[in-house]
């Protein structure tokens, strides 16, 4: 929904009054204007800005995603990893809320950490119990998309990355290609799956299910340039208010947007090392290694072929 910066404008938009009837004949057109203040137009770039300093770890995003996409339960059981019983993103879990308890201080404090609970004098904003809703990053130069040999993975008219289920033949090459461990094969149906950024909803002018449900607007959906601007302002204001740990992950020029990946359409505001949330600091674009490998390989073959030719030709002369 609305940006953090314009909270007063977070009130219900005037346009809602056009639909004051209790029972409506159909869905509200361009509903995303009411829920996210965004009009969804093909040809523009959309993404998520996930602000962990607003996340209350309620997992509404996980539920909304599963309810909309009809995803079955996944690897069910108590995991003993704080309140995280999802574990990781998978073919059946396209949103995953990570929980990191730091009540006893920095996880790297080593010996003696946890003996003193510094819970009462907390750095401002979610800090001693990290919660972060992870999702497919919809990379600008997406390794999964670049690796996909069938064209099943493609870039949509909304600049998002989607696996087309009517094309995928389950070769599985996108799985190791992803630098964030997102894409996953469902052995049951033999296809690769991941967040589609609600491709079908975008086509109908609807905000993606997870962002729409997010109670605190920790997950914000919008047009990429707006989101990035909003995110930078958020970091600035957090630093002004003493939360100097805050930084962007995946925005242009930030950690995560490295190794020629370009920016990530789904980027984050974090307050601890990327690794603490299970994210790499400097992922790289896999396809950058095609040319070096192929080139060197062929050169090797050329060299060895020369050797063989020489030996065979020598034989001929004798």
């Amino acid at each position, binding site marked *: 929904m609305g940006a953090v910066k314009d909270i007063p404008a977070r009130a219900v938009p005037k346009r809602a009054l056009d639909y004051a009837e209790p029972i409506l004949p159909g869905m509200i057109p361009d509903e995303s204007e009411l829920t996210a203040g965004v009009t969804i137009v093909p040809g523009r770039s959309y993404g998520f800005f996930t602000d962990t300093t607003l996340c209350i770890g309620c997992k509404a995003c996980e539920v909304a995603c599963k309810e909309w996409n009809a995803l079955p339960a996944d690897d069910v059981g108590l995991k003993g990893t704080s309140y995280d019983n999802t574990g990781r993103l998978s073919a059946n879990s396209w949103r995953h809320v990570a929980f990191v308890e730091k009540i006893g201080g920095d996880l790297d404090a080593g010996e003696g950490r946890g003996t003193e609970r510094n819970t009462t004098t907390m750095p401002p904003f979610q800090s001693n119990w990290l919660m972060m809703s992870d999702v497919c990053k919809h990379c600008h130069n997406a390794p999964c998309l670049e690796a996909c040999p069938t064209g099943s993975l493609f870039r949509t008219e909304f600049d998002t990355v989607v696996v087309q289920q009517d*094309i995928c033949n389950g070769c599985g090459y996108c799985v190791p290609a992803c630098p964030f461990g997102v894409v996953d094969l469902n052995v049951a149906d033999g296809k690769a799956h991941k967040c589609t950024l609600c491709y079908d909803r975008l086509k109908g002018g609807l905000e993606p299910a997870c962002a729409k449900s997010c109670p605190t607007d920790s997950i914000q959906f919008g047009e990429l340039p707006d989101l990035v601007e909003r995110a930078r302002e958020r970091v600035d204001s957090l630093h002004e208010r003493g939360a100097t740990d805050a930084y962007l992950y995946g925005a242009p020029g930030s950690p995560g947007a490295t190794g020629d990946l370009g920016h990530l359409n789904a980027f984050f505001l974090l307050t601890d090392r990327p690794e603490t949330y299970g994210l790499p600091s400097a992922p790289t674009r896999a396809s950058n290694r095609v040319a070096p490998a192929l080139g060197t390989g062929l050169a090797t073959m050329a060299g060895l072929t020369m050797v063989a030719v020489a030996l065979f030709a020598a034989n001929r002369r004798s």
Partner: protein
Amino acid sequence: MQQDLQTHKPGAADRPYQGVGYYGQPALKASPFGWKTSGYIFLAGMSGSAQILGTAADLFGGPGMEKTARNARHVAMIGATLGPLLLIGDLHTPSRWYNMLRIFRRTSPMSIGSYILSGFGAFSAVTAAADWIGMKRVARVTQVPAALAGAGMSVYTAALLSSTSTPLWAAAPRLLAVRFGSSAMACGAAALSLGERIDGRPGNAERLDRVAMVASAVDLAASLASRREYEADHVAAPLEQGALGAVHKIGAIAVGAGIPLVCHAINAGRRRPSAALSVLGSLAVLAGGMALRTAILRAGNRSAERPADYFRFARTPPNTLNERKRTLLPDTAARRVLP
């Protein structure tokens, strides 16, 4: 981008990584590739290189090597027929195998490979068929593109593995290609050498053994070099420890490169080379070739499951490589939306 970097506030991102991840949860997903894939990589290499050697023999080896060329075309057909079956068998929706030819993506070694394999299969088949029905001239022409495709068959699999985020595969793209290529050449030579022994043409076998010897030497050198690079990138462990470590060190390096090197070197130094040593060397090459592919593939899958390795790997800037190569690739994104 530059000005972004200036306005960006580092926050906690700049704290050094000290080994704490997210409950040891893997940050990557391992490839679903197993024995079918490693088997294919081995076959593709052997057959592809055999096709090269066959063509070389046919064009430069003179009449004494005509039969060698025919053997080579048979060996090539193993890869051309068995290879696709292994790959299709490895798909999780095999009925859609044909989508591999739906589109071409130069960023995807698997897409590139699909076309290489198709070309190799087609030209190898024509060449072999022409050979059988005695159309020597046709075969002589078509074997050339087949051999070129064979070169691709021998090395594109290395690009396929290294063009992923799996740390072990991504750490040393060039050296992996050298290893796969040289090992492929050695295997092709070894297979043909065995054929020559059976057909009783020891002279040809010895020449092929020399090829194998050189290839093994290259392989050995590359494997030692890559080991240093793996260490530097903190990804070596899976390839060093446990059963996989043994398969790699003993199987791939000692047996696959060491033994043939020794055997063929000894033979090279003798006036009457020993057939036993030659056969032993050839068998060692083939066994080692299989061991190499198996070790690299499985160790790669394991390294993807080791978050600490990946986090360290993704902090050391091998990105210099990637940054430099940026120029090679355009944005694959439909449009550039941000400066």
